[in-house]
């Protein structure tokens, strides 16, 4: 990359063409790797589990490299040679020139204060916008076909009347260059395969290498002819997308069972494919995903997304474009692969609609029971409602799904960028301190009034809304600048090939070329802020168990010397997650405020802002920057995650949790995340799994968006014995009933631990 940027041609080209030529340069010179037993080939880095860096986006310093190499969580091995190249060539060239540098230099003082206070995070400061998923277009069209589309688009350009005609042509030409670059990249793999073929002795492997060479010659130049070619084509496109930039959530084939099904059926019918072979190829694709770690993150981004996982969420099930049930044999085969491979990447999920047969759901539950957290379960009917509300067509809505963690999108047609997490709890804390961040003493927000002068919940909440709006606007003002930086300096012509309507519009994915351009700000801490506001209303204003002043004093002291009060706040106060009107009413008020502050605002790409509610790992980071809260939470502890109740606040069982969570208007979001923990015994037999199925169906009937299950093991139970405060919501099967583990006597707990160990999978 640095090499290319130093060249003359780089300096002379327009930005999109420069990026395209850089991409070409990369793919022409990248080392080709073909593993010994591989059938689907192509690596993100020099070898499996390696990942390149993107200095034009974020130039790691030598210190960063050291941290990456030595840190305990999510480390990345950095060898001496790499450090040397960084020291001698990369850093001198890129220091101060990466888009990250540009972003931080162009953000306002108020943005920086809010960012450092932990009010929000900035997704795009280390990684490019991505958050999109492929639809079915590559399975019927080779890159030659895309090339023809580009030419037609260029022909249609109106140089007389369209002031953007020139930019569009540059963009379209850039796209063409990238398409050709990928074709060449595939050819290089074919050449490598042929090279290996010359030295290969085993007849088995010779046959495979021949086929590999054939496949890489046909795709992605032409449309895929069979199942194998379809998979390899996707994988090349995937590698292209993550080579061009380091977009969030890598890339994702989306509704894989829908796209591959015609190839599967045809292969079986004409005898060129067997179920076993299809399974093997899918397993190999799974290995590919698992071997691609996310690009190394540092700083806040590392905290908010503390994982190697690069979030390719494979969708199965759902409905077809005509609305009928989409489950087919491949849907089941993919689940078999998920179960057998048991890998953290790719992620997998099932889309359950009212038309989805129970058998498919039951199959998913059998895997969930084995406790590695996949597949997660999504509500097709609700996803479609979300997309329709946002103005998508019915076809685009039905072809959509969820990606990343839980984000809803119209696959192949939408650019739905997550711009950063938003710490609702921090905003409340700043409100309670009249605009000051108590952690630093800095004036981070605006003055909204001295809280001890508030006489009612309404007064407090008015102040909160002002503070919320202030920070949302700071965030969006920052976003608008960042968006233009990417549009002008880091377009993604290769990615643009695959998302409608970039080619037709002649506009880049990062510049509003897609059919739908949505921005998200992810709300975090709904449970904590709800319980905190409920506590203030109940204990301060209504029951008058403590004055506002007294409460604030206790918070400042982190409850030291105020344990009685803290216990009251924890145990004698209404809490979200118990199907209790009081607390859930507060939750709805918070939701409406967050929604009104964000939904519908325009972005710079002709699209709108929407909200979603998911945390990845940021609830831990955000919690570290927030002091004690009125719900009884101590300073520095994580805030609540997703839309789940505060850890341990739900004491009435999973049906009450679901009733509470259902009071969120999921349809007006772009995704919500609900985690539930169960002990394996609850799912031990058919009956147990049926019941879990009923629970899910009931939640979905109430328009819940998503649910995922953590099935715990004996070690977790032992942890729960040691730290009951962290496991208040853990349900176990006792005798003929279930109860909260932490409520049981030690003897009974040990008995259950013994049982669990015994019955482990």
């Amino acid at each position: 990359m640095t090499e290319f940027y130093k060249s003359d041609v780089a300096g002379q080209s327009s930005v999109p063409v420069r990026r395209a030529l850089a991409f070409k340069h990369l793919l022409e010179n990248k080392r080709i790797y073909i593993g010994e037993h591989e059938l689907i080939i192509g690596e993100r880095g020099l070898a499996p589990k390696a990942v390149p860096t993107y200095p034009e986006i974020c130039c790691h310093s030598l210190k960063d490299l050291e941290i990456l190499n030595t840190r305990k969580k999510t480390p990345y091995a950095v060898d001496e040679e790499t450090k040397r190249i960084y020291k001698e060539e990369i850093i001198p060239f890129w220091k101060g020139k990466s888009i990250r540098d540009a972003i931080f230099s162009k953000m306002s003082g108020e943005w920086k204060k809010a960012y450092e206070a932990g009010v929000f995070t900035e997704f795009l400061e280390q990684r490019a916008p991505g958050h999109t998923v492929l639809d079915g277009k590559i399975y019927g069209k080779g890159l030659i076909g895309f090339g023809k589309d580009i030419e037609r688009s260029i022909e249609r350009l109106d140089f007389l009347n369209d002031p953007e005609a020139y930019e569009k042509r540059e963009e379209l030409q850039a796209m063409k260059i990238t398409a050709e670059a990928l074709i060449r990249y595939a050819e290089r793999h074919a050449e490598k395969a042929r090279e290996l073929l010359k030295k290969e002795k085993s007849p088995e492997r010779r046959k495979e290498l021949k086929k590999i060479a054939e496949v890489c010659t046909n795709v992605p130049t032409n449309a895929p002819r069979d199942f194998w070619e379809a998979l390899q084509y996707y994988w090349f496109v995937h590698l292209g997308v993550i080579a061009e930039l380091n977009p969030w959530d890598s890339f994702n084939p989306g509704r894989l069972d829908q796209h591959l099904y015609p190839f599967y059926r045809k292969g079986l019918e004409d005898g060129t494919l067997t179920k076993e072979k299809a399974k093997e190829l899918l397993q190999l694709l799974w290995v590919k995903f698992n071997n691609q770690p996310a690009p190394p993150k540092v700083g806040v981004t590392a905290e908010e997304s503390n994982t190697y996982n690069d979030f390719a969420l494979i969708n199965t099930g759902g409905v077809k474009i005509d609305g009928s049930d989409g489950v087919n044999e491949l849907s089941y085969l993919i689940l078999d692969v998920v179960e057998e491979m048991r890998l953290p990447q790719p992620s997998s999920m099932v889309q359950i609609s009212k038309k989805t047969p129970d058998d498919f759901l039951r199959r998913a539950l059998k895997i969930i029971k084995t406790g590695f957290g996949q597949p997660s379960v999504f509500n097709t009917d609700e996803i479609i409602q979300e997309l329709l509300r946002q103005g998508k067509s019915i076809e685009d809505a039905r072809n959509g799904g969820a990606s990343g963690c839980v984000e809803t999108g119209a696959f192949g047609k939408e650019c739905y960028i997550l711009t950063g997490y938003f710490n609702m709890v921090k905003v409340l804390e700043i409100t309670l301190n009249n605009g000051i961040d108590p952690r630093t003493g800095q004036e981070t927000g605006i003055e909204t009034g001295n809280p001890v002068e508030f006489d009612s919940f309404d007064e407090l909440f008015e102040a909160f809304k002002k503070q919320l709006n202030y920070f949302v606007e700071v965030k969006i003002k920052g976003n608008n600048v960042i968006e233009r930086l990417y549009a002008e300096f880091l377009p993604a012509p290769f990615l643009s090939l695959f998302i409608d309507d970039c080619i037709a519009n002649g506009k880049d994915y990062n510049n509003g070329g897609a059919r739908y351009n949505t921005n998200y700000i992810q709300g975090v801490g709904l449970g904590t802020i709800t319980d905190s506001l409920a506590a203030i209303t109940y204990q301060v204003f209504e029951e008058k168990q403590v004055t506002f002043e007294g409460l604030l004093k206790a918070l400042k002291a982190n409850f030291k010397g105020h344990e009685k009060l803290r216990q009251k706040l924890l145990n004698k106060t209404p809490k979200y997650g118990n199907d209790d009107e009081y607390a859930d009413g507060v939750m709805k008020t918070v939701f409406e405020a967050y929604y009104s502050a964000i939904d519908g605002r325009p972005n710079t790409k002709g699209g709108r802002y929407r909200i979603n509610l998911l945390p990845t790992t940021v609830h831990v980071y955000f919690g570290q920057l927030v002091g004690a809260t009125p719900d009884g939470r101590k300073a520095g502890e994580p805030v609540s995650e997703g839309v789940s109740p505060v850890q341990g606040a739900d004491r009435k069982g999973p049906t009450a949790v679901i009733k509470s969570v259902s009071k969120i208007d999921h349809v007006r979001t772009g995704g919500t995340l609900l985690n539930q923990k169960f002990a394996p015994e609850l799912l031990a037999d058919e009956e147990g799994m049926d019941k879990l199925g009923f629970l899910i169906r009931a939640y979905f009937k109430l328009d819940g968006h998503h649910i995922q299950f953590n099935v715990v093991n004996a070690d977790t139970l032992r942890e729960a014995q040691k730290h009951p405060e962290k496991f208040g919501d853990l349900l176990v099967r006792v005798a003929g009933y279930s109860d909260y583990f932490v409520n049981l006597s030690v003897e009974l707990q040990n008995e259950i631990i013994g049982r669990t160990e015994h019955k482990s999978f």
Partner: protein
Amino acid sequence: MAPELMYRRNRCIKCGECAASCLQEAIALQANRISISRRRCNSCGECSQKCPTGALAVVGKEVSVEEVVKEIDKDAVFYDESEGGVTFSGGEPLLQSDFLNALLDECNERGIHTAVDTCGCVSPETVEKISDKVDLFLYDIKLLDDKAHRKYTGVSNKAILRNFEKLARNRNDILVRFPIVPKVNDGKDNVAKTAEFVLSQGIKRICLLPYHRAGIEKYRSLGRVYKLRRIKPPSDQELMKIKKRLETFGLDVKIGGG
């Protein structure tokens, strides 16, 4: 039947609010717990109101039919999916037969499935009054020998068995529950007699409920004396033996609640 004061020691933070507020002077704060004079305590609940952690709680309260129905309605969406419903248990629900009757009417009106978990130790008229309104009976059968039954439960089993016979004549959806208490009712003789009796009534399904000791903690927290300390729960092998024996008689046996 009256409310009782429950003290869960593992939640107590020894703040002393309870001792300070007790109108009967029944509570004393000690080094690492409180002590409650059960004789003086009248379960008024003052202490539990003041208790910040919920370590002290009054368990058992009066509720109206409307209040119960409101709770039941909360889960209606789940019953719709699962065709599950409400189980009335206890204690002994048939000891509050008018209340139970009213609740059964409400459930039937709503089309919610009902189950009653009983030991049948009431008058036949009581059973008669509600039996048509109940979808499923969960019926406890502990000891077939009347003398032994009187020894261990304090009452005769004659009414229990007669009520069972009457129910079984008019319906076959009775789930028999056989609590297995080692050294009390798990002997070969009782197992055989239980099997014969159940089958003679045309009932085929039986659940074994292994004795467990979750009750010890509960008794302790209520200041009650637990009299069965010497008895250990049955082992897996013992349960399997009983299961197999019952199966040889022709019964469909499940270990656990069913």
